[in-house]
């Protein structure tokens, strides 16, 4: 429950392509995304009075630059009162939107710029990425000594999810296929060639039953959005994307302490968000579900109430989530096909939800999209964050 229902809106969005850009400084992804978002909002740069750069993981010195106001200076924001980092791993976008909204609703800020930039594709080596994600967010006392890492974490969820629901590997692979169909329509996505279930199933086994093409890959990239009050949003060029409802639940720090390895806190977070929005899952036009691995997209989809538990695999396999399908899901291609850019994986999904509702999604535009649900989760799926957005206040 955010208390923000209909009070605040996303009014501008910006994003740079996701990919490998060895000659591009990480800060560029942030400055360019922020510039695009401010211009898209139809405001002047000096109207931004609060900047929230989320954290970058590839290099502590780069993150320090974000903390010490480099974005503000590079863009020449003359009336920026505060530059303050808001970071919750993959839930950063969801949490940042709520914090920005709360500041706006109380009058502490007028126009908040939320921005992400990172360089996990070219800033770290492939093995360096594996090693980073065998320690970041993983308990140094209780899990690192056992060889824990993020593929294994996703595999632990997948094993149990298959055991409880009877989900088949082909159904998990179909989530990757669905996201790829959307990515093919997204010029900012890295993987755009068609993908088949057979190709996913033939890819290298990482941690059983998780295969290489069921795994996200790390890239460079960035995105940004501008938030203001619903009042101010009325006079701006974009269709305002109102926050209608929000819900969240933190369920663990150490992964093995998660009480329900294949449900997490999604049902409770969704209950709060839908209740505040005054909507039901049936009224959602587009779902941007956090997809670092296919099992998490299925669990999110099901626990939000978009279908019954255990039915998600069949829905993705039948193409109901594909372009032109009944319930479009993760329409920018997500981390599985657009590419994982760190905390920005979640920021991108929020930006995509706003883009769809503004009617600016180009070839992948979902017709007449009025209500969207977006999810974010950080660390080892430590929390469940659900945001409902809409261009109408029901």
């Amino acid at each position: 429950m955010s208390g923000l229902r209909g009070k605040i809106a996303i009014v501008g969005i910006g994003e740079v392509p996701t990919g490998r850009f060895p000659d591009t400084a990480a800060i560029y992804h942030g400055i360019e995304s922020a510039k695009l978002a401010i211009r898209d909002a139809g405001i002047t740069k000096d109207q931004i009075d609060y900047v929230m750069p989320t954290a970058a993981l590839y290099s502590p010195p780069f993150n320090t630059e974000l903390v010490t106001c480099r974005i503000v200076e590079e863009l020449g924001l003359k009336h920026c009162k505060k530059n303050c980092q808001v970071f919750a791993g993959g839930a950063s976008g969801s949490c940042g939107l709520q914090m920005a909204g709360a500041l706006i609703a109380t009058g502490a800020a007028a126009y908040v710029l939320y921005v992400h930039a990172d360089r996990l594709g070219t800033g770290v080596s492939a093995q360096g990425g594996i090693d980073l994600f065998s320690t970041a967010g993983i308990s140094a006392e209780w899990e690192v000594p056992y060889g824990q890492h993020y593929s294994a974490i996703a595999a632990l969820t997948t094993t149990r999810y298959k055991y409880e629901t009877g989900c088949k590997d082909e159904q998990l692979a179909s989530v990757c296929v669905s996201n790829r169909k959307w990515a093919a329509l997204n010029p900012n996505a890295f993987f755009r060639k068609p993908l088949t279930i057979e190709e996913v199933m033939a890819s290298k086994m990482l941690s059983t039953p998780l295969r290489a093409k069921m795994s996200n890959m790390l890239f460079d990239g960035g995105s940004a959005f501008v938030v203001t009050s619903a009042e101010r949003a009325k006079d701006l060029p974009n269709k305002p994307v109102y926050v209608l409802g929000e819900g969240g639940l933190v369920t663990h720090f150490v992964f093995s302490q998660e009480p329900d390895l294949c449900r997490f806190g999604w049902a409770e977070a969704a209950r709060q968000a839908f209740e505040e929005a005054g909507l039901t899952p049936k009224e959602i036009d587009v779902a941007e579900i956090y997809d670092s691995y296919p099992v998490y997209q299925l669990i999110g989809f099901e626990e939000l109430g978009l279908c019954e538990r255990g039915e998600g695999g069949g829905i993705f396999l039948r193409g109901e989530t594909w372009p032109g399908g009944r319930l479009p899901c993760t329409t920018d291609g997500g981390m599985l096909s657009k590419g994982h850019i760190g905390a920005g994986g979640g920021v991108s999904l929020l930006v995509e939800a706003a883009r769809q509702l503004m009617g600016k999604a180009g070839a992948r535009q979902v017709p007449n999209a009025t209500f969207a649900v977006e999810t974010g989760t950080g660390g080892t799926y430590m929390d469940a964050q659900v945001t409902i957005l809409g261009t109408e206040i029901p």
Partner: protein
Amino acid sequence: MEMPKKPVPIVNPWARPFWEAARKGQLVIQRCQDCKKHIFYPRICCPHCFSDRVEWVEASGKGRIYSYTVVENNAPSAFIRDMPYVIAIVKLEEGVQMLTNIVGCDPHQVRCEMPVQVTFEKLDEEFTLPKFRPSIG
């Protein structure tokens, strides 16, 4: 290529009794003297009822596999030579869950809900890790 050394647990002071017991081949967990619930990993106060009265007790060492995976590729550097190895979450009879490795069997024979019992593997002079193997009989 020289393999990096295995990471050792970064120990919180209040968890030291756990690691001292493991070195002697014992699995100990905490129990709350007020709400009587078992606690893992070690805390400074009970995560159930917030009491400060937590004590150490020896665990049965028996449990079931909640979930597991066989790591076949893309392991962290220090674990590359161990592949294939099994990572599992074991739920002990006392109700607590812990991450571990399953040893002493073919990795591909491991299943959800398989009964397991604790065994100990020496990491170095200071640390011994509790691991689990399939229960006999």
